[in-house]
């Protein structure tokens, strides 16, 4: 209705003469330019936001893939640990049980520069059985894969949390992503205001040209603000993407630690298995075979030590933000 009236009013304004038309014409040109620029800024802003959301999604997906890889590596290492425990420590416990009375004779005997301390055999066997039973019990509750992983890592997700302040596991899934985007200030653009009291002035003047001017300026102002908000959003997302990248690097470091321990355990197990095979092949005589027993005991004990070494020592608080924040403090 008002648009129609405004259009009808144009000829009347025209009759007002050049004094009215010249400034309004110039103003209309400026308003048109502002409106076009505002519309372009709005479109640009939406594009910036959309692009940022896409990049963030990609970063989350890559981090998730790394997390899955790290968890797989941890699970495989855990499974390897369980096998090693059974094949070396378990086998040695069986051998000790079979030869208990003979082995006891070696206690405190000095062989090749080392005084042998025979472990308490019933306790040794019981502890090996406890480990195996514990694994079975845990596996029945949470599954074998999870048990293996727990044994190796004590939780990759907790590690990721220490590095980013946010658990990586919570960074997966559409819902979590939306929540994060919401936290960044994403979501619908608050088009708000523009600061120009458009409607009242237009109706007051009952003239379409000033209305056009004010409308154009409003679009220009909203466009500029939309673009700024989109830039702010994109900047926050960009920083968060870098943080996610840092979390990925730290997950990679955890994987490297797993490889280190796996390699070490493999080498130690190889030697312990050879020593156990030699010991097992003997008709054991403590007077003659103390060296062979000592060799197996030393290597199996070393295997046990490696088996008990966690991938990450959470008690020490390593790889926390503390080390990273130092940079900021001293920068």
């Amino acid at each position: 209705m008002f648009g129609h009236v405004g259009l009808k009013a144009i000829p009347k304004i025209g009759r007002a003469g050049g004094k009215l038309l010249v400034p309004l014409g110039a103003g209309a040109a400026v308003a048109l330019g502002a409106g076009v620029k505002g519309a372009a800024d709005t479109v640009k802003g939406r594009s910036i936001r959309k692009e940022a959301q896409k990049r963030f999604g990609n970063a989350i997906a890559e981090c998730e893939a790394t997390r899955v890889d790290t968890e797989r590596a941890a699970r495989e290492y855990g499974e390897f640990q369980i096998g090693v425990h059974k094949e070396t420590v378990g086998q040695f416990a069986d051998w000790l049980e079979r030869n208990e009375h003979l082995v006891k004779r070696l206690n405190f005997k000095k062989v090749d520069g080392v005084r042998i301390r025979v472990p308490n055999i019933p306790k040794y066997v019981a502890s090996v059985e406890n480990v195996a039973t514990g694994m079975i019990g845990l596996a029945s509750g949470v599954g074998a894969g999870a048990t293996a992983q727990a044994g190796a890592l004590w939780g990759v997700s907790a590690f990721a949390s220490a590095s980013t302040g946010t658990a990586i596991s919570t960074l997966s899934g559409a819902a979590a992503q939306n929540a994060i985007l919401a936290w960044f200030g994403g979501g619908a653009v608050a088009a708000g205001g523009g600061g120009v009291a458009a409607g009242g002035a237009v109706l007051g003047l009952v003239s379409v040209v000033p209305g056009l001017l004010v409308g154009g300026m409003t679009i220009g102002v909203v466009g500029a603000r939309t673009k700024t908000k989109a830039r702010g959003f994109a900047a926050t997302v960009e920083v968060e993407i870098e943080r996610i990248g840092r979390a990925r690097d730290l997950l990679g470091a955890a994987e490297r630690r797993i490889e280190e321990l796996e390699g070490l355990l493999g080498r130690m197990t190889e030697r312990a298995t050879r020593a156990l095979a030699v010991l097992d092949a003997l008709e054991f005589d403590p007077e003659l075979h103390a060296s062979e027993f000592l060799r197996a005991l030393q290597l199996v004990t070393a295997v046990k030590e490696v088996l008990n070494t966690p991938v990450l020592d959470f008690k020490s608080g390593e790889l926390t933000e503390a080390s990273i924040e130092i940079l900021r403090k001293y920068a």
Partner: protein
Amino acid sequence: MSASNAVEELLPKPSPAILVDSFRIVVTSINEWVTVVAQEQARRQEIRAWEKSQLDIIHVQRDFLLTALDKTFDERSENFRRLFDQLDAALVSDRDDAAAQVSDLLGAITDLAKTSPFKDLKSPALVVQEFLQSGRVIEL
């Protein structure tokens, strides 16, 4: 008389007052637009500067972490290799103290294994030294 004609009759006739009002609205709108556009440009510049400083900080941290971890793991790998070579030699040795040597070497290997490769990252001195050596400047 049609409805539109009736409304048209109610419209104020262009007058000097309308001219002044129109001009005032136009000038006010243009002023506000120019002001807001300038403010928004300044805010976008601030955002760009903030983004750059944040990214610089994170890049330094990542560079440091990756370099430190690389060096640490390489050094540990070399130490393990050397210790296992010595262990293998001790395992086949005929020396009287061979078992003691094996014991010492196994102790050294397991101690090194238990020492976290990440522990040095907590050392403020090391972190600061690395940062200073990088020669980078962060504007906060």
